[in-house]
């Protein structure tokens, strides 16, 4: 059976001022697959997924999502594409002036145009149960712990039932136990909602739990690619430095 490619990046280049952040990155994400991108801080990992979501525009190269070139999309096409992808930000990016309930209903009312309060409520409860936060529905984001905020961010991402989820450092700033919980949750969500994911991280236990494939980014381009075990046994000192 032929595997469907959902994201295809080739020769991606992006610079800010004189600093070249991405120098020719390539990546392939197949349907139902989890690709983990690891690299040093400042190696352009987050920039790459922001380019995929159309939040940044690349200088050179191609990014195809569901076979469509992102930089050629007009506003409506970009909106339609974003409807099919979810983005979990590093700090969860919860709307801090809204309650958990309002955070979840925000995309439902505006993107899916759902007006029925009962349906909004049932969808909200469903995703909160999926991430284990059903008791927090009336809390403000400021009242949530770091791990709860990540779960909540994931719930808000899942509420639109995306086909692809882009995770930007999902375990950064969390203790070891919570990091593992979030990593397992990422995997659970992939199985439950049949999503494909690009996971940016430098947390190797998270990569080990979640990755079908690992890509090592160095100086803005892909240095190595393979399964977690393949890269763990690599003789390249740079790649080895992530596993030690």
């Amino acid at each position: 059976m032929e595997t469907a490619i959902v994201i295809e990046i080739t020769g991606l280049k992006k610079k800010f001022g004189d600093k070249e952040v991405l120098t020719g990155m390539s990546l392939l994400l197949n349907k139902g697959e989890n690709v983990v991108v690891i690299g040093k801080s400042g190696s352009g990992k987050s920039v790459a997924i922001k380019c995929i979501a159309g939040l940044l525009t690349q200088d050179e190269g191609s990014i195809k999502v569901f076979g469509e070139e992102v930089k050629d999309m007009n506003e409506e096409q970009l909106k339609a594409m974003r409807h099919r992808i979810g983005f979990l930000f590093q700090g969860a990016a919860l709307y801090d002036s809204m309650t958990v309930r309002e955070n979840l209903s925000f995309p439902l009312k505006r993107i899916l145009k759902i007006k029925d309060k009962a349906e909004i409520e049932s969808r909200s409860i469903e995703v909160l149960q999926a991430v284990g936060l059903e008791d927090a529905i009336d809390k403000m984001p400021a009242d949530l712990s770091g791990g709860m905020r990540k779960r909540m961010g994931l719930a808000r991402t899942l509420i639109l039932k995306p086909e692809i989820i882009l995770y930007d450092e999902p375990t950064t700033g969390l203790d070891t136990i919570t990091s593992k919980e979030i990593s397992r949750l990422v995997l659970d969500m992939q199985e439950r909602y049949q999503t494909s994911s690009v996971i940016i991280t430098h947390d190797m236990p998270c990569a080990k739990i979640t990755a079908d494939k690992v890509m090592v980014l160095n100086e803005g381009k892909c240095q190595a690619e393979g399964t977690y075990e393949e890269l763990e046994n690599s003789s390249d000192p740079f790649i080895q430095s992530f596993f030690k």
Partner: protein
Amino acid sequence: MPSSAPFSKTLFYISDQAFFLRSFFRNLFRRGFEWDELFHQLYVIGYKSIGIVTLTGFILGIVLTLQSMPTMKEFGAESFIPGMVSVSIIREIGPVIIALICAGKIASSIGAELGSMNVTEQIDAMEVSGANPIQFLVVTRILACTIMIPLLTIFADGMALLGGFVASSMNNGTSMQLFFTKALTILDFSDVLPSIIKTVFFGFTIGFVGCFKGFAANGGTASVGTAANSAVVTASIWIIIIDGIVVQVSNSLLYS
């Protein structure tokens, strides 16, 4: 050779503002207007500013009356005080002072709020979810300022006249009916209309500058403070410039 960097930086800054203004107008008439958020902002910007506007207007009226009293007494022109106070408050002092107060309170608050949302990626999150942050955050705030600043100014003008009456009454025993008759009969169309028109521009400027500075904040938490501060300074400067332009234009239209 002199560097062209400051010049090109200024051009980029102006073009960024032009694009921001264009996206405001494009989203103003787009489907899916955020009525709930507009009403929330009208409440936050308008209702929550009534306290400071009442106090400022009332004290302004008292001070203006008390300051002019000795000089007017010297010329035996005390009976002109209500008229003088009302013309100066309604034509110039009321709109400008209230706009400057609101620039400090509202532009800074919008700049800090949106700046904080920007650096914590909340605006990106809104955009990537397919929602329209300009429609939700910018259009509602600019419209709320444009609607509420004129109303707050009219209210403050009323409070200033009341303050003027209190000061006048305490010093001369002027009756309320006499004070307000003298204060209001001197006013005509050419005093009130340009004044209201300029407060609409002031309101738009306060909202626009606050939102633009908030959206431009992208350098971590320090940039949130900078956005708030810069929003106040820029809005205040624009208020003075717009005031000068409106006075010049209205004088040439109404008195030429």
